[in-house]
């Protein structure tokens, strides 16, 4: 009765396919795979917040940007080695998220959404207008590639394994988070905050922790992104990616990390496989979201799960 | 029980009613009937399926098999609001008042299908007369009422429209003895006016005080059916079916 993703051979096959990809697939496909792997970080991170505390955030794109900008500026302006900037990027993102959003997490539902829209706009405006620091609308160019000793990860193939390892680590850590005490607390408080506090859950602390974690994931993702694309611009971190990340974190199924990853792959590559639609491409994209939710409201993963024989969660 | 009532036609009846929740078979082929002017009690332990039957009667949970008749009309398949318009009123389990609305607005919602304003006012007065606590609090937001006050409100909401069939799921829940008395007095009075009542209760002895007949349920099946008098008078019977 185990769902597909609980069988060992499924994992073995997935792993083999992932490892073989750069050798078999054209560079362009590897390139898209890299984006997918990179994006799984902010998406899974956002999943902690939305799926597990019930708080919808539209600021994840901005936090992703903070990670990217931190490493970009440290490497281009101060000449740090890229590997040395991973920790500062993640820390910077956490600090910013907690200082801007720490007070906001106590807000209920929609008020939190609106606060995150505010945070998103503020970060974007600062990236755009604080020209002395961020180069403003010129963006940051010539960001160095991540180097491992002599070897530097220039091509999509080379970068792929870094992205894969990062996504893998993020996946397993994420699983640990939601399986941990913290995960239990977060689910409890998203069901009923008052009841959660009356069983001794420090609601405020748990929520801020969730926010910090989701920021950490975004920051790490931003780090990878900056060193892969090697040019960043404020518009890459506006509301659009925030909405995209939100959609990716919800499209795959309620509280399912695997679902988030599958959704990221499906939606990030959509712009490519929908190319035949030409100017109707975006319409097709919207249709995927809309019809997906209309007909698979428990998430697209239910497709797989049903086939594997597990009962679909049923509620009248 | 006056004999003419025993002969009167069923107002509400089910035959071979089934309810499933996923794989849980909560109601298994229940047939019951409530005749005009009668008070029928549904008794049974926790999880026996009383609420499931009632929810499928009022249209909140779809029946997975069987039929439900209101007078001679088949109503399973009809939506809740249509059943309500046909004369059913419902006091849900666990109060479920409209939390964001005031007490008064809650009662007005009970009278949603009543068009005659004067009539509504008169009914409101009657409910407030019954539950003076609610009158004092008529502008309070229902969510902030005490548990018992909410229960009174839920009952009041069903009474304002003077329904033909009144279905109550554990009306005594959370009420103080004095309030239980008031409510059962009221139910008696209503029934005298010819209203038909179906009543689920945990505490058999309260329900049996006014019931004409009772069905005892166990894990989704009717295990015993009789007139209330025999259950009332025979402690052994009560003991064996109701554990009390």
């Amino acid at each position, binding site marked *: 009765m185990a769902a597909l993703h609980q069988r060992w051979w499924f994992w073995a096959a997935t792993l083999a396919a992932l490892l073989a990809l750069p050798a078999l697939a*054209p*560079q*362009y*496909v590897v*390139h*898209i795979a890299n*984006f997918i792997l990179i994006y799984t970080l902010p998406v899974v991170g956002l999943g902690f917040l939305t799926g597990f505390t019930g708080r919808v955030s539209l600021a994840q794109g901005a936090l992703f940007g903070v990670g990217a900008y931190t490493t970009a500026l440290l490497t281009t302006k101060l000449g740090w080695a890229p590997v040395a900037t991973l920790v500062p990027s993640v820390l910077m993102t956490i600090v910013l998220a907690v200082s801007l959003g720490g007070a906001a997490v106590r807000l209920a539902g929609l008020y939190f959404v609106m606060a995150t829209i505010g945070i998103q706009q503020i970060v974007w405006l600062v990236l*755009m*207008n604080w*020209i002395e620091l961020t180069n*403003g*609308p*010129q*963006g940051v*160019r*010539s960001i160095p590639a991540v180097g491992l000793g002599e070897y530097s990860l*220039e*091509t*999509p193939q080379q970068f792929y394994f870094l992205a894969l390892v990062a996504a893998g680590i993020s996946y397993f850590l994420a699983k640990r988070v939601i399986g941990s005490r913290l995960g239990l607390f977060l689910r409890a408080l998203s069901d009923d905050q008052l009841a959660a506090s009356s069983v001794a859950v420090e609601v405020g602390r748990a929520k801020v922790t969730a926010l910090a974690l989701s920021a950490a994931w975004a920051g790490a993702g931003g780090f990878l992104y900056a060193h892969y*694309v*090697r*040019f960043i*611009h404020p*518009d*890459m971190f506006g509301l*659009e*990616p925030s909405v995209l990340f939100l959609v990716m974190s919800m499209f795959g199924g309620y509280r399912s990390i695997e679902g988030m990853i599958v959704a990221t792959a499906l939606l990030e590559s959509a*712009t*490519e496989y929908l*190319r035949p639609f030409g*100017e109707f*491409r*975006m319409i097709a994209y919207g249709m995927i979201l809309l019809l997906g939710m209309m007909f698979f409201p428990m998430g697209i993963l239910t497709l797989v799960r049903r086939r594997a024989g597990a009962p679909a969660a049923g509620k009248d | 029980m006056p004999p003419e009532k025993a002969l009167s036609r069923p107002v509400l009846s089910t035959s071979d009613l089934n309810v499933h929740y996923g794989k849980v078979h909560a109601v298994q082929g229940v047939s019951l009937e409530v005749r005009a002017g009668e008070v029928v009690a549904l008794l049974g332990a926790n999880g026996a399926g009383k609420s499931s039957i009632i929810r499928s009667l009022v249209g909140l949970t779809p029946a997975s098999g069987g039929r439900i008749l209101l007078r001679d009309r088949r109503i399973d398949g009809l939506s809740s609001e249509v059943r309500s318009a046909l004369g059913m009123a419902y006091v849900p389990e666990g109060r479920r008042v409209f939390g964001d609305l005031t007490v008064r607005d809650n009662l007005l919602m009970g009278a949603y299908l009543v068009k005659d304003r004067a009539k509504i006012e008169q009914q409101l007065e009657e409910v407030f007369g019954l539950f003076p606590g609610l009158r004092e609090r008529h502008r309070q937001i229902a969510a902030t009422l005490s548990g018992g006050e909410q229960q009174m409100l839920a009952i009041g909401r069903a009474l304002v429209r003077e329904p033909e069939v009144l279905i109550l799921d554990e009306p005594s829940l959370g009420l103080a003895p004095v309030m239980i008395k008031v409510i059962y007095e009221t139910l008696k009075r209503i029934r005298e006016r010819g209203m038909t009542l179906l009543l689920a209760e945990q505490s058999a002895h309260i329900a049996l005080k006014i019931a004409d007949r009772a069905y005892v349920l166990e894990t989704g099946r009717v295990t015993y059916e009789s007139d209330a008098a025999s259950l009332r008078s025979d402690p052994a019977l009560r003991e064996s079916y109701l554990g009390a």
Partner: protein
Amino acid sequence: QDIKLGVVAGMSGPGTSYGIGIRQGAEMAVREINAAGGIKGRKISLVVVDDASNPAQSVTAMQRLVNDQVDLVVGGWGSSQVLANMEVAERAGLPYIVVGATNPKITTEKNKWTFRVIFTDSVQAEQIADAAVRRLGMKRIAVIHDANDYGVGNRDIFVASLKKIGLDPVAVVPYQSADKDFTAQLSRIREANPDGLAIFGTIPAAPAIMNQARDLGIKARFIGTGGLANENLMTLAPKASEGTVLTTYFHEDVDPQARAWADRYVKEFSGGSQPPRPVLAAWEYRAVKFIAVPCIESSGTDKEKLRQCIGRWKGTLFSVPGDAYFDKTGQLVQQSVLVEVGKGAFQAFKGK
């Protein structure tokens, strides 16, 4: 085997109308060349990718061209997109001629494989500053600009050029591309009482600014650069745009060849859903036909040879007065064109 010509541009998103112009220019050039027998018997096939006017997607789009093994890329719209996707071309060693991005940073000395035919913001902003003071006699110039790279780049050079001439702008205010209401900015400008208002932005903000400025009673004459060089300016601000003076990338009345080409272009594409927009189409067309094709003819498709050939290119292009050539940063050096809005159309500027 065909020669593969890559085109990247925004064919959806905010740059749609420009992107489609670029595609049309390429199609026109390629059709003509193939009809004439191709290059040494080899046909050109076009690989067009849409980057949705989005910098992140632009990287993917260019990667796709690299993957499809195109021989060179002619295209690119939007400075943010080009700044992002040129990194890919540089890394892959793919010759790339940019036609639709004006940010000076694209051609610095760091770019090896990237060239640009359209002139930069710096040239345009400098020329319009000069024209404003010397030819239009403006004394109190205010500036309103988009806060994006285009607007900020123009503003910096424009203000610097004014200073060189000895003039300070009376007000400089930014707006965000998505703004619809400009009363806040324009109120400040009105306080400054300017006689010229320089607008560095694009459609639809620019015509909206013009309309609202007139509503607020600002009488200053408008000036601007290539961002305004779009027929929609007159559709959206029919009255307010009258008299605006701006630099543009192409004008059909500069020489008869340009006129003939423009007529052909309009005839060929006016049936489509897009209104014909010759400006960037002209650049794409000229870059393909007069720069890329001759180089492939002489140097073949070896990338390094092709790159060197383009770098050495020198010649004439219709609508460009005099000779044009690439400088050592890969920028095509040329004279720009000044136009004035009159009777709902761009006219070659006839002022002093």
